């Protein structure tokens, strides 16, 4: 018998209790890991380093309201503006309504300039871009989306519109890669397809994506554009890309505070449950602890053994919880990643794994130390008198 065997056997003295506490630890760590990863994912939506000089101009009343495409000319006239791209969420699906992914009608001539950092990793050539621009019924798709549907360049993709009464048949001209998996779950086609196919969209667009020449120009540009269209029939709301993305996250409410609140509640609850379980388990062993000490185990050694039991217990629970969270993250990516692009990046990051494991071990030490310390300070003679 070795020390680890002794610790393990002690831990398994009440299998049902051990399994229940491990189960509650697994669920708690799983919950915390998933929630914290969700928070990280949501934060990453608003923390895109490539977006520092990109702006979004949309209708002040909301995303469902359109802006005149003629605004594009005014935007281009601003000395701080490098380029402008009209972009409209199309909201179509491929074959099955459940097969949903991000698809946009966008200005094919400026799209690659606006998002050049994202497209830059693809190694796309000028010839490929020209191919796409030349083909009015062409489209470009992200690599993840193409792989998922088994698409290749030249394939025809029929889209069924859900927002607009239009079912375009698009030919894939280019498959692009992106640093973020979420950006690869997208399809872009020519804006003209939407304008020509949907009469009421003629001359209108949902948003303009603007690339400023320098990040420091952005505040001035925002102020000028919105002032220019103030009190017009189509008032604008101009904001940075990060602020625009944050608006989507904010639709979910103050999700950060909610997640942190739930995390704290879960941690406190599991600390109480683990502490109570360990206290009960140690109290039941009062006589046994006294016998160990009578045989020559020092108080420090008994304390170390009890702490090791607590740490092993939460270590197993924490490990299984993190493992389960990783499996769940894979499920979330594949099931929600297409419909909600930021979920395509959802993962339990190493930092979260480390924080969860350290947190679990901290709970184990904290929950075990107080009852274990009290038990090892109790006089041996008193422990031997207890009925254990």
């Amino acid at each position, binding site marked *: 018998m070795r020390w680890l065997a002794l610790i393990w056997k002690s831990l398994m003295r009440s299998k049902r209790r051990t399994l229940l506490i491990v189960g509650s630890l697994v669920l708690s760590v799983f919950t915390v890991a998933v929630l914290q990863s969700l928070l990280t994912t949501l934060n990453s939506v608003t923390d895109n380093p490539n977006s520092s000089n990109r702006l979004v101009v949309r209708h002040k009343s909301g995303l469902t309201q359109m802006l005149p495409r003629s605004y594009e000319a005014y935007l281009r006239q601003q000395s701080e503006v490098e380029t402008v791209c009209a972009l409209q969420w199309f909201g179509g699906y491929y074959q099955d309504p459940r097969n949903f992914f991000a698809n946009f009608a966008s200005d094919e001539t400026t799209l690659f300039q606006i998002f050049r950092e994202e497209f830059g990793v693809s190694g796309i050539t000028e010839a490929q871009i020209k191919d796409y621009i030349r083909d009015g019924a062409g489209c470009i798709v992200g690599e993840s989306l193409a792989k998922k549907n088994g698409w290749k360049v030249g394939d025809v993709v029929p889209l069924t519109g859900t927002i607009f009464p239009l079912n375009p048949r698009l030919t894939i001209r280019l498959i692009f890669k992106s640093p973020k998996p979420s950006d690869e779950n997208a399809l872009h086609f020519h804006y003209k397809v939407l304008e020509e196919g949907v009469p009421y969209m003629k001359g209108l667009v949902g948003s303009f994506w603007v690339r400023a020449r320098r990040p420091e120009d952005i505040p001035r540009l925002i102020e000028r554009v919105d002032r220019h269209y103030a009190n017009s029939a189509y008032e604008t709301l101009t904001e940075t890309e990060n602020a625009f993305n944050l608006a989507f996250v904010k639709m979910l409410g103050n999700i950060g505070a909610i997640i942190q609140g739930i995390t704290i509640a879960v941690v406190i609850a599991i600390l109480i449950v683990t502490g109570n379980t360990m206290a009960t388990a140690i109290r039941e062993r009062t006589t046994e602890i006294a*016998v160990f000490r*009578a045989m*020559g*185990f*020092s108080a420090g050694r008994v304390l170390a053994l009890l702490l090791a039991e607590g740490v092993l217990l939460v270590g197993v629970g924490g490990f299984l919880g993190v493992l389960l969270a990783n499996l769940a993250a894979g499920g979330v990516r594949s099931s929600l990643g297409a419909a909600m692009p930021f979920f395509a990046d959802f993962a339990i990051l190493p930092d979260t794994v480390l924080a969860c494991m350290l947190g679990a071990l901290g709970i184990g030490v904290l929950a075990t130390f107080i009852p274990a310390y009290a038990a090892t300070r109790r006089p041996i*003679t008193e422990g031997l008198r207890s009925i254990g």
Partner: protein
Amino acid sequence: MTSDRFDLGGGEPIITLRDVAKSYWREALEIPVLQGIDLEIPAGSYIALMGPSGSGKTTLLNLIAGIDRPTGGSLEVCGYELNDLDDDQLASWRNAHVGFIFQNYNLVPVLNAYENVELPLLLMKLSRRERREKVEEALAMVDLMDRRWNYPRQLSGGQEQRVAIARAVVTDPDLLVADEPTGALDAKNAEDVLGLMERLNSDLGKTIVMVTHDPKAAHHARHQIHLEKGVLDKAVEVNR
């Protein structure tokens, strides 16, 4: 049976108590349990500590075994002045010099007989093989080698106490302390356990100090020491 006040025979003392006292405190109230205990117990003795409830016999046993400390006087046991040892030193001293036999056996329920006997050896610098040899020797001595993989719940009371005795002697201690070792056993098993303890004393030369209420159990000892209200009353040599 002859009566000779505190004459426990000759020989080098293994236990020497000088004016030992022990009191407990209930808030401000001092409750004396032992007072003015002077006693020398020679190595190889087999002592039964007897007396009515509350006479202080278990307290005296605990002091001799180093699991409690006196409030006055000094104890020298197995060559060590116990008052000079700190708690960790005292724990090491107990591991090396004292074997414990309890009324309720106090085996660890999640360990089998072999592992229970091996437990005190984990504190010693021994190889796995050395530990196995010692455990098997101890279990063979109590005639339980065939039950070594059984857990305490799979053993009878008598077998459990024999495992506890094997655990007590596996470190080859000089001193065995037993607190009512037959208190939870039927007559047959009690007789077996007492016979075993007698052999440990006569064959292996272990010094045994046993607390008992049972005159039959006390009759197995070589001497009986009677306590009365916390003081030594008399010592009696047992004629067997």
